[in-house]
């Protein structure tokens, strides 16, 4: 043992250096400075930086919330992924681990897009919408009353997300079991971190998120093209200039529901189709000499018309809503996300959509 003492000492010293390098930088110093600032109770440059960050986040959030569409907030410092809609946090997911490449040190007065960057999802890996049902699958589904039921898509646990901007996000659903059971998962996770986040050379910001496997699948299901992602760098860091979008223009509120029209009876229908329930109630009230009910309290007050939706990604021909299909229509475009899979309902036949 005595013969190996120099070697052991050398190794121990080198290991200590490596561990020191791996530790988070100067956390003690940061807290000491903050404590000193608090004691003096004066506004510091750190406070100004924090205020700039908060203003940038709120500017972006307000613009995204006003679109009335859901968006994701990826808080790299807080290690959380939040689903937000109109300022409400619909869901918050903790990030077990993450690897980021491309962040820069905060210097000078960084612009708002570097403190809160908005990116637009272009495609998720193996998106089922990109693989239409094949004739064979249609044939297989012919025996079933509902082919979609026969072929439920299985969402992946690990996938990559590509954006319109040069950034790459990889989601890795990994078990986070403790003890010996989780050793393999932790080892694989460490190797993935060592390898770095996925993404080509053109990606200026690469992020790998380690989530619970089930959560990763759920997130996958809820992701659709054109979804906005707001990335918040940790304190003291900024995002690289990666083509962040300017905050989107607010979307006008949707029209409040119009008074229900009496649906016309389609030809060849062997029975009468009942009108909507509220129509029945209103008629009954009018017959009894009661006044018509005012609009419901929760009805949205702004009747501004909705702008036409953008063309769907991919440029594929979109079919009209099923109600129109039933009425024999052929053309038209679907919703903003290339949808058009709704159901035709008897009462909607005479209604334009």
């Amino acid at each position, binding site marked *: 043992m005595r013969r190996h003492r120099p070697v052991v000492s050398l190794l121990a010293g080198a290991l200590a250096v490596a561990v020191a390098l791996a530790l988070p930088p100067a956390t003690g110093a940061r807290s000491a400075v903050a404590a000193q600032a608090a004691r003096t109770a004066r506004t510091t440059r750190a406070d100004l930086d924090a205020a700039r960050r908060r203003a940038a986040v709120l500017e972006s959030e307000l613009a995204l919330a006003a679109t009335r569409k859901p968006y994701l907030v990826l808080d790299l410092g807080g290690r959380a992924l939040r689903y937000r809609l109109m300022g409400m946090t619909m869901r918050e997911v903790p990030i077990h681990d993450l690897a980021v490449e491309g962040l820069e040190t905060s210097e000078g007065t960084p612009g708002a897009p570097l403190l809160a960057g908005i990116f637009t999802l272009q495609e998720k890996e193996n998106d089922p919408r990109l693989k239409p049902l094949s004739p064979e699958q249609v044939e297989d589904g012919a025996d079933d009353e509902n082919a979609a039921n026969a072929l439920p898509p299985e969402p992946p646990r690990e996938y990559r997300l590509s954006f319109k901007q040069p950034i790459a996000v990889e989601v890795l659903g990994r078990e986070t079991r403790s003890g010996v059971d989780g050793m393999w998962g932790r080892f694989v996770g460490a190797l993935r971190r060592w390898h770095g986040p996925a993404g080509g050379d053109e990606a200026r910001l690469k992020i790998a998120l380690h989530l619970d496997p089930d959560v990763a699948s759920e997130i996958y299901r809820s992701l659709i093209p054109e979804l906005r992602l707001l990335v918040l760098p940790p304190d003291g860091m900024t995002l690289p200039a990666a083509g962040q979008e300017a905050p989107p223009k607010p979307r006008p509120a949707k029209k409040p529901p119009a008074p229900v029209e009496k649906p016309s009876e389609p030809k060849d229908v062997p029975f009468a189709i009942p009108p909507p329930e509220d129509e029945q109630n209103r008629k009954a009230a009018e017959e009894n000499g009661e006044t018509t009910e005012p609009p419901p309290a929760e009805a949205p007050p702004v009747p501004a018309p909705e702008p036409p939706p953008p063309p769907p990604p991919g440029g594929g021909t979109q079919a009209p809503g099923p109600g129109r299909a039933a009425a024999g229509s052929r053309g038209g475009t679907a919703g903003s996300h290339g949808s058009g899979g709704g159901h035709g309902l008897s009462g909607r036949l005479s209604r334009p*959509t």
Partner: protein
Amino acid sequence: MTRRETWLVAAGAVVVLALVVFFARHRGPAPAPVDGRPLDAAGEKEFKSLASRTDTLAHRLDALAPKAPVYLVIDTGRNRLSLIENGTETLNAVCSTGSGRALVDPERKRRWVFETPRGEFFIRAKHPDPVWIKPDWAFLEVGEAIPRKLAERLAPTELGAYAMDLGDGYLIHGTLYKRALGLSVTHGCVRLGDDDLDRVYHKVRIGTPVYIY
């Protein structure tokens, strides 16, 4: 130092170097240190301006949150529908939402994506005993010919006891396929089980907001 010890030292050095590279690579750039220096007059002015602006922005953001006493929240990722009454979740029901699959009609060059739309919607109509008029895709996806007569498209029991119209042909309705509740299997509508459908139908009114994410 013998030759063996020299080799040991060299091997140890290689291991340590690998460790350093392993950890250092993922530290990334160090964040800028906290600057505890007090602000000058210009900085103070900017800080006050920012504080005022953030208050305004936060207030405007809060104003966007729903004020309705009753609204629905649909989580397409977990396939859950929540009924919120006066800020409290009074129902958390299993539902089914869009599969995200696409279907192509090569003959007429049409394409459908069976996705539940996201965003803010409102209940636009309520239909008891709805009759579904099966659209073209319902026949195409099972390899059947598209019928010419409307009567051949009618499916009186398919949508369950009630349907609530969200606009653009999307509905919240019942289902015959109860096994599939909790799965993303629909053509864009939101399916509910019988009991949950009954409860939701009698709680919402025309104009009730629905938030889908």
